[in-house]
Structure formats: structure tokens, C-alpha cells
């Protein structure tokens, strides 16, 4: 990484973000671009994939290959891209609704398979794009467009879920803390395997401007001596009762899916790789 071939402007697309003023997603976009500059990944070697939501607009703001897919399906879409071309850096992004509500069924499987991608969820505790309904991370009691009498649903804890899913890299950043965010995203992208980053990313429009302050007050870095390798300890510290922890909460090195696939292909080829039409032998009576 001596030579700086790609600078910020190389990663920036011609589209101007249409997020609201003060939206947390700006910070996440910036941190991601800074991380890319640090990592010097050639833009054409990347695919940024998303679902639908304000946050899912992010791929359009980057000058890489991108796919703004359908609501909730960023992860399988990204899986298809990655397995088709293991050399491509694949980053999936989206919102808390996109990922934890409609997309919830896909995450455990990408995580356990350890598909080599980075998944950044911009969690604003609300549905932004559809103008303010409760999301799976909306706090209890909150009034939203669908919870006139106050939200009654216990919010999920994404970090704990990811640890339970055996995700091999689990981290949290805050859009209002760019330094930490850049560092953590950089590590997430470098990680071989499924890396998950929860980005606390306020939505001033539908959660009020106080949301930013409330988060700022509650976030803490991990204890100095914290080792992110013990899943039980990680599960414990992710409890979110007093503080919301920022940083790499859990990580583990284990084989990645594309490597395993490659190995399988090699074993398979050894069995035999005849001309396709010679496979007709299989059907001889």
C-alpha cells in the first residue's frame, strides 16, 4: 500500500446523495470510501450490493460495480456475485429493515457458510424510505407511523444474533465517529470470511435530531483488554444494557466458502472431466 493509486475521487460516483441533511448515512459512506482508499482496492474489482431503503442507495454513490437489488435480498445477491467471481471484493449494504426484517432469513446462512463478503447495516432504528414505520430495532414505546400507541415489540440485538450465527467477524461503528468507523470497516473488508458491521446511523427526519445525541451518549469503545475471540464473552458484552459497544466484538478465522468450493472443484475434476458430450455414457443402459 505504498503507492496511492486510487484517491477518494476515484471511488466517488457522479450521483449526488439525496439523503436528508444530517442523515447518518453520509458518515457511513465517507468512512467506507476512506477505508477503500486505505485498502486501495481497484474500483472495478468491487461490487457493492444492496437492497431497498435510504441506506440501500449507497452503492449508487460509489464509482464501482454496484447492484441496487430488491428489498431484503442483498445477501443472496451478494452471494451469487461472490461465488461467481471470488476475486471480486463484495460489500453488501442496507438498512435495519432490509436486513433484519424482510432479509432476516438470509443472514444466518451467509454467516454460517462464511461467504467472503462484508455486510454493513446502517441501523437507524426506523424505516426511512417508506417514511417512518417501526423497524426491528425501534425501541419499545416509540410512536411511529405504524405504532400509534407506541411500539410494543422488543427490539432485536443484531450483534448477539450475528454471534449466534457464527459470523466470523462482528463489529459495530457509529456514523458520528469516523475515525473508529474507518478503522473497523477497513478491518472488516480485510477479514477473510463473512464480516458484519452494524453502523449506528441516525435518521433525523423520522427519529428526531436527538437520536444522534442519544447514541453519542450511549456508545463506548470496548474495554482495553478485550479479546474478540471468545464467543461467550462477546455475547455477554453485546448485551447493550448500559453501553453500546463500538469496535470489533467478535472474530474468528475459519475456511471461507469460495476456498472450499475451489477445493471441491479440484476433487471433482480429478474424478474426471470428459468432453461434455462424452457424459452421454452416464446414460447408457
Amino acid at each position: 500500500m505504498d503507492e496511492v493509486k486510487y484517491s477518494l475521487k476515484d471511488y466517488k460516483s457522479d450521483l449526488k446523495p439525496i439523503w436528508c441533511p444530517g442523515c447518518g448515512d453520509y458518515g457511513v459512506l465517507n468512512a467506507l470510501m476512506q477505508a477503500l482508499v486505505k485498502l486501495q482496492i481497484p474500483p472495478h474489482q468491487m461490487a457493492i450490493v444492496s437492497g431497498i431503503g435510504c441506506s440501500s442507495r449507497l452503492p449508487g454513490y460509489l464509482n464501482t460495480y454496484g447492484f441496487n437489488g430488491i428489498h431484503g435480498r442483498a445477501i443472496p445477491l451478494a452471494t451469487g456475485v461472490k461465488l461467481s467471481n471470488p476475486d471480486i471484493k463484495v460489500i453488501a449494504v442496507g438498512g435495519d429493515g432490509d436486513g433484519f426484517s424482510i432479509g432476516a432469513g438470509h443472514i444466518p446462512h451467509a454467516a454460517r457458510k462464511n461467504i467472503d463478503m462484508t455486510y454493513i447495516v446502517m441501523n437507524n432504528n426506523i424505516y426511512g424510505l417508506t417514511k417512518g414505520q417501526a423497524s426491528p430495532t425501534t425501541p419499545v414505546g416509540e410512536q411511529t407511523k405504524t405504532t400509534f400507541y407506541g411500539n410494543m415489540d422488543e427490539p432485536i440485538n443484531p450483534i448477539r444474533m450475528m454471534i449466534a450465527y457464527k459470523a466470523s467477524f462482528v463489529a459495530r461503528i457509529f456514523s458520528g465517529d469516523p475515525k473508529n468507523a474507518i478503522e473497523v470497516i477497513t478491518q472488516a473488508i480485510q477479514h477473510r470470511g463473512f464480516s458484519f458491521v452494524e453502523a449506528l446511523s441516525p435518521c433525523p427526519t423520522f427519529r428526531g435530531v436527538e437520536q444522534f445525541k442519544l447514541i453519542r451518549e450511549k456508545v463506548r469503545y470496548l474495554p482495553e483488554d478485550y479479546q474478540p475471540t471468545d464467543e461467550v464473552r462477546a455475547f455477554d458484552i453485546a448485551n447493550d444494557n448500559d453501553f453500546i459497544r463500538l469496535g470489533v466484538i467478535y472474530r474468528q478465522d475459519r475456511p471461507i466458502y469460495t476456498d472450499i468450493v475451489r477445493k471441491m472443484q479440484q476433487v471433482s475434476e480429478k474424478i474426471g472431466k470428459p468432453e461434455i458430450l462424452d457424459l452421454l455414457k452416464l446414460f447408457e443402459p
Partner: protein
Amino acid sequence: MASNNIVIGIAGSGGDGVISAGEILVNAASSDGLFVFMLKSFGAQIRGGESSVRVRMSSEPVATQGDKLDILVVFSWKDYLKFQSEMLLEDHVVILSDSEDSFPEENIPISANKLKNWYKVPFNQLATDAAGTSLAKNIAMLGVISELFNLPKSALEKSVKKKFSGKREDIINKNLSALKAGQNYVKKEIEKKDSVLFEYTPGDPRIVMEGNEATAFGALYAGVEFYAGYPITPSTEIMHWLSVYLPRYNGVVIQMEDELASINAVVGASFAGRKAMTATSGPGISLMSEGIGLASMAELPIVVVNVQRGGPSTGIPTKTEQADLMQAIWGSHGDSPRVVIAPSDVEDCFDCTVLAFYIAEKYQLPVIVLSDAFIGQRKESINPNRFRDLKYGFKKINRRITPTEKELEDYHRFKITKNGISPVTWPGMEKGMYQAAGIEHNEKGFPSSDVSVHARMTKKRWEKFREIKREFSFERLYGPDDAELGVIAWGSTKGAVKEAVARANANGIKVQAIIPQILYPFLIQPFHDFLRHKKRVIFVEMAYAGAFRRYLRGFIRFGDFGVETVSYRQTGGAPFTVGQIYDKIVEEYEKKDA
């Protein structure tokens, strides 16, 4: 009665080896160059339930399973009862049943005249004596019927050997003994009555394939590189097959968590430049409708195979039906172009899949292959040489068109062109970065909710249809052009229609059938040609609501041809018999002067 065309049915319980026996028979017949057709049928139980198999063999080409059985083998009458409606009997039928079956004779629901050639054979005994295990009773049975009806004997021996190849030598030998024992039993115990006697001259060996295997093989042949899927009856064999063979050619097969994931992974793989496909059935295809629409919008080539089953909802997973036609065409929200192709037999599963990849890659859109359980899970014998010289051969299926260096200088991924096809890049290509999207976008790929952009881009996506209609025609006509009675059918009903039409014409009833392969876009010219001499047309489909009828009428103004139309349809489950179609043809033919 000598015959070069014989239909054999076998019914029994899970442990009776019914299906194995059928397969050995099929293999034997095929290696003697016969034309073979085999259907399996099971009860709902996974293990130990009733099962049946039906094998038709002939020295002439066969297109159906044959309406009625010439020979019925019953290991257990109780099991046979479950299949009675699917296993109708010829009057000259010969019945062989297990002499140890304790089913009360008076409860056998078969008319006396059909029971006149009824042999009770001690299959168990024969097997135990010859092979030391009753497990070989299906082989002993094969010995019996091969001797009794003059079925391919040395080929049968070869097939038994092959079946048990990989097993210990003595197991092979024991089974061969069982086969022999069956044959000897006939020689000794049965005074040969030639009520049914198979006559044939051996020819070049044919290969045996199931429709789903043909689909999988077709995909491999067309260069598929990525398969994502989720198991579902009656399509899963496609995934099973590819999961063994595709990795050998550097391809990827991944079992996803559901069909939503499967279709999106396939779209992702296509975005990454790969030839990608999935296969599913009923419930799975419903779940994929959103993802198929995404491929339409992002203009990405994908192939989706729907092996139709009985519906609606979970319906009857193991049985066939043709009720997904309109869903294939219109099943996603919005104006979402996709091509629909329907295979009509096992070979055609191969051809249609290859064609699907050709069209998908060339036109950058989803192609749906509308197969069904009836063709997907049956076996047919096929001339192996037919694969050697094919229209959409391996070399001819190019990948989608990529942009030139010059086009890359100011790359418009969704450039509006005359035929709607624009050059496409994928991740890894140094120039040509773009954003694919399910949201409406301009030629560059940037999101737009501008009304005029939407109008232009929608038109662009549908222009491809115009070109497809120019590129393709079809000629699948059976019977004389100048017949005034016509039959229009699609997909797996082809077999019965073809045989019925042949029979009718042989009997002086002039009728012609047309069976389209590409169903959507609608290729109208062949139908117009077909209708020139027609006065009356029968629509045949295996579905209750009559979607095919509505579909045809939506595109063809039958009134303008002065053509009366009649719908002939039934719910799925059991495929049409030749007799049913024939009778309908006669019925309508007789109306012609009314």
C-alpha cells in the same frame, strides 16, 4: 398375439423392488435398441409405501406410456388398488401375481374376462431358492416375464449385471440365478400361451434419460456456470445431477436457504457475468416471481426451470399438471418481459434448456422453461447421436454481448438500441463500471422516476420481443395441413396428442395438431398458417381453469378465420391417455357437418 409394442405395469410395496425391476427392464430394452417409455408412481409414504412402474417398449417410436397394460405384475393386490385408476388393463391383459399374496380373491376388482390370463407365481419362493433371499424376487419376476413374453433376454442379463456392478461377485451371481430361475419356472410350469408375445429385432443401443436429467445435461451443455436452488419435488433431480457434475467443469452449485435466496443468487451470478440458472416447482416459482422481475428490469440473463406439479398451493407434489402457464408469462408485478419455453418430452427438456440459455444470454432477460412432473420424472430411450449435431450447439451459445473499447469510453449500460439489446459488462472488467438496479433507471443505470425515462426504458426492454419473434419460428405439426379439424396443445400433452392424431388419420379422420415450443412471446405466423384450412380447433391442456385457451384467444382472432374453438381439459394428476384425445377428436370431427 404377436406385438412389437408392449406395456408392462408392476405394482408392489417399497421392499418389492418394483422400481428397480422397471429400470432393469428399461435398460435391457434400450440396449437392444428399442424405444422405451417408463413412468413411476408412488404413494405419499417415504418408505415402505406402495409403488408402481409402467414400462412401454416398442420397436417403433413411442410418445406416451400407452393407455392400457398388456401385462400386469402384482406383488400385492392391496398396493395395486392404490394405482388402479392409473393402471388400466387391455382386454387381452396377462396378469402375474405373487402366489403368496393373501389378498382375498373375491375382492380383486378386475372383471372376469380380464382375469382369464392370470398366473399366480411364487416369486418369493423362486428368489429364495435361487438366490437365498427374497430380495431377489423382482429379478425372478423379470425372468418369468422375459421368458413368457419374449422380452430381450440377453440384454436383461447384462442389465442385471450392470445394476449390481460394484456389489460383491456373489450378489451378482445370485441375482443372475434368480433371473434364470424365473425363466426356468415358465419353461417348466407354464404352458406357453401366446396371448401376448413381443417381437422385435435388436438395433443399436439407445440411451436412457429422465426429463430432469436431460434438463440438467442440457444446462451443462449450454455452458451453465452457476446453479443456486432449493429442493422441491418434482424438480430436485436437476440439482442433484448438477451438484455432481457441474463442479467438474468449474461451476458452482449452491443449495440456498429458500427460493427467494436462490433466484437472487442467480441474478447476482448473472450480474457477475455467469451463465446462471435455477430450477423449482409450484410454490418455489411463486416465491421467485419478485426475483424474476428483477432480472427483467436489470436485463440480466437467467434461466428458470419450473417442473410443474399439481396445484394450487402445496397441491400434489408428486403429480403432474399444466396450470402454471399464465403465471410463467404474467407472474411478476409490472410489465416484466420474460420468455417462456415448454418442453414436450425428455429430449425436448434438453433442447429447451439449451435454447433457454441461448435466448437468455442473447436477449438479456429471464427465460422460463416450463416442464412438468410427467416429462421431468419419466424415462425415455433416446438415440445418442441426436446430440451430435444440434442447432444451438455448444459453440453457438455465446455469452451476452460486451461493449467495444469505444463504447466503453462513455459507457451506457442500458443504451437504447434498435432491438433493445445493449452491451453489458461485469465486475472485474476494468472499464464499464455501472449500477444494476431493480429501480427504474436511465441508460446510464442511474435511478430515475421520470415518466418519459420510464416510457423509453420500458419500450427498450420490450423491443427484444420484436427481435425474438423475428428470429424464431416453429414447425411442430402433426397430420395433414389441409385437415379441417385442428388440435392445439402444449408441453407434455404432446405425446398423447401426437399418437391420437396419428391414429385418427390412420382411421380416415383428418386432423392436424400444432404444438408450440416457444410460448411467449407469441409466435403468431405458424398458427395463422395452421388455421388456414381449419374449421374447428380443440385446445388441449391439463389444467382446470383453461388458461391456455384464454391465452390463445388473447393472441389469435379465431373468429377471423371462421374457426370454432373447443376446450378440452382436465385437472392434472394422471396425464391424458391417447384414447381420451382420440375420442375427443372423433367427437368434434363428427360435429363438423352438424
